[in-house]
């Protein structure tokens, strides 16, 4: 059963087609990356999933059916436009938001305490929210998103304002939730985080689907016939089957001749007595794929 099943959804605001015939699904136990340049329609898509907006056409099924008030308790949402009640103590703010997700105060208390300890906010629980740093508030917002153990988590830029230690902790937490079978939709511009976390991605631009599938398939489809190698000493000046050798940060990029196969090149290198510490097929970073695809789209729309 899909957690989200969107088919052919569209949304228009005035002259702007924010979302244009988009179809996708999100499964339990996966981290799903919703990517796209600014203004691509990511937030509108998320808001349609959450029934803040109704799509002009198309259907969205969330948790097996259309959105209801009861289902809100099973969804955790960290929006892009986010904040907390500033004038009250942190624990009261978190408790209030947890009760709005249908938790009893008594049930919320131990869970919140656990999270506050994990996020190193326990000492600050009696402080007013406005006295907390931006990073602390960001952690508190993540607690609000996760406290009620939602089946569907939708997070928009979860790592902004977090230091590397906390970023790592949040990543572990998200992976743990995925392993528990929760569905997580993550929208971010930090492509390295997407590469590390996401199982599948949907890349949209101008409200349209550009890329959709598993991260591996997408990267493979963009991989060239290049190899990345790092020799222990030196590379020979010429290698059979290699058209060109480029040095990059101590690594070498080997551009193959038309008919050459990677395993034949490996064999050739070993035969030539080269010792290698690294040999891999060059997969383009998601960042490059993103830029390339978005640029192509831009050119396409300008033609």
């Amino acid at each position, binding site marked *: 059963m899909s957690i989200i099943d969107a088919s052919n959804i569209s949304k228009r*605001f*005035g002259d702007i087609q924010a979302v244009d015939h988009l179809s996708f699904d999100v499964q339990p136990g996966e981290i799903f990356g919703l990517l796209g340049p600014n203004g691509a329609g990511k937030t509108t898509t998320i*808001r349609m999933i*959450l029934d*803040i*907006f109704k799509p002009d056409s198309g259907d969205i099924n969330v948790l097996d059916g259309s959105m209801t*008030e009861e289902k*809100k*308790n099973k*969804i955790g*949402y*960290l*929006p892009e*436009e*986010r*904040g*907390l*009640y*500033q*004038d*009250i103590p942190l624990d*009261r703010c978190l408790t*209030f*938001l947890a*009760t*709005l*997700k*249908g938790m009893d105060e008594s049930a919320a208390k131990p869970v919140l305490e656990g999270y506050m300890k994990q996020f190193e906010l326990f000492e600050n629980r009696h402080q007013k929210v406005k006295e907390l740093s931006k990073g602390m508030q960001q952690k508190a*917002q993540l607690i*609000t998103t996760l406290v009620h153990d939602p089946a569907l988590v939708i997070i928009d830029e979860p790592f902004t304002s977090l230091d590397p230690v906390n970023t790592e902790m949040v990543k572990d937490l998200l992976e743990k939730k995925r392993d528990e079978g929760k569905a997580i939709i993550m929208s971010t511009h930090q492509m390295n985080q997407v590469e590390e976390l996401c199982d599948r991605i949907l890349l949209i631009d101008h409200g349209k689907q550009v890329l959709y599938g598993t991260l591996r398939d997408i990267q493979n489809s963009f991989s060239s016939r290049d190899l990345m190698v790092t020799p222990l000493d030196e590379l020979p000046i010429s290698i059979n089957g290699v058209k060109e050798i480029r040095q990059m940060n101590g690594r070498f990029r080997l551009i193959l001749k038309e008919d050459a196969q990677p395993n034949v090149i490996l064999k050739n290198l070993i035969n030539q007595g080269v010792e290698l510490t690294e040999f891999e097929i060059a997969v383009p970073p998601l960042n490059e794929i993103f830029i390339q695809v978005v640029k192509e789209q831009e050119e396409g729309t300008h033609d």
Partner: protein
Amino acid sequence: MTKIWQIIKHEYRRHVFQKKFILSLLSLPIGVGAMAIVAVLIAILSTNSSPVGVVDQANFLQEFPQEKQDGTIFEPAIDFLSYQDADQAQTALDGGDIQAYYVIPETYPDSLEIELVYDEKPDSGVQNQFTQLLKLNLDLTKNLDANIRHRLQSGSNITITSLDGSREMNEDEWYLVFTPFVAGTMFVIVVMTSGGYLLQAVVQEKENRTMEIVITSVSPSQLMTGKIIGNIAVGLTQLIIWLIFSWIALKVGGLIWPVLQDFSLPADYILVLLLVLLPAFVMVAAIMASIGASMTEAQEAQQVSGLFSLPIMIPYYLSSVIMTNPNGTLAVVLSYIPLTAPITILMRMAFTVVPVWQIVINIAILVIFAALAIWVAGRTFRMGMLRYGKRISLKEIIGNRVEL
């Protein structure tokens, strides 16, 4: 339902347990109390309760009151001392034994003139008590029955009864005239307080960017209902605490100033008071909520809300017209206009008999407009909830087109 309860609790706690609220709550009774204490102190300090001399050349005063009358702080009981002649009395006055003396000349029964000699003019209370003393000694009254004499002395108490007999009023019910003013003022203050809080409360989620988190947890109508009830509860808390203070003040004041002990409101007046003020309260609160929902910043909303609070006060500015002609066209029309209706009807009821059907129409109008205001508030809120930094136009609220 539990979510609405959580929102009510959140809104209530946000204000009621704040220093600012407690201060504003106590400042009014403390201010009024302080003024009362100052007034009493001034009265005590400025009222001269020393005896007054009487030189009775006409031999008119045969009888002095058997027992000393009960005085009040504002009018202490005065002892009247008899002197043989004006010289003696003058000596006593110069010596400070008495504050003044009356000389009743031999010609008094014909001339009806009495001389009062003083250094500093005595309070009116002295004059009143001396008049009582004279009344007691009038020939005319001497042979009358004690009860009748007492009635003559205490003077008239006129009771006015309306033609249909449904309404009576006498001097002892002076407070009925003040009630609409006091109740109205309290209403305005309480409405403005809750309305002001509600205004902030509705803008709050937009200002602090919790809107999307909240509306993906509860429905907009749950949020709105919780906010309206929560902030009305804050206003009612304020009202109840002030009423308790007023009750204490009446009880304490009654010890000093016995007239206050007579204070009691007729049950039907209280009923109408509640039936009028409750929907009016909800209506104004919902209007405030609509304003808040259509604005993006609390401060901006505060300014616009001022425009709506003015009409509520209009009956006060026109009070002389309403008082002199409480069933006139202006008064009747004002009691049908939603914002001016609550205070106008209370004022009219204090001064005249308002036909029941007019009261019913008044309440019905208030209830209908309260419901309408809630509907508009909900609609405005839905439209404005995700518009950070952009106001909603009236056209959008009324029309169907929503520009997002």
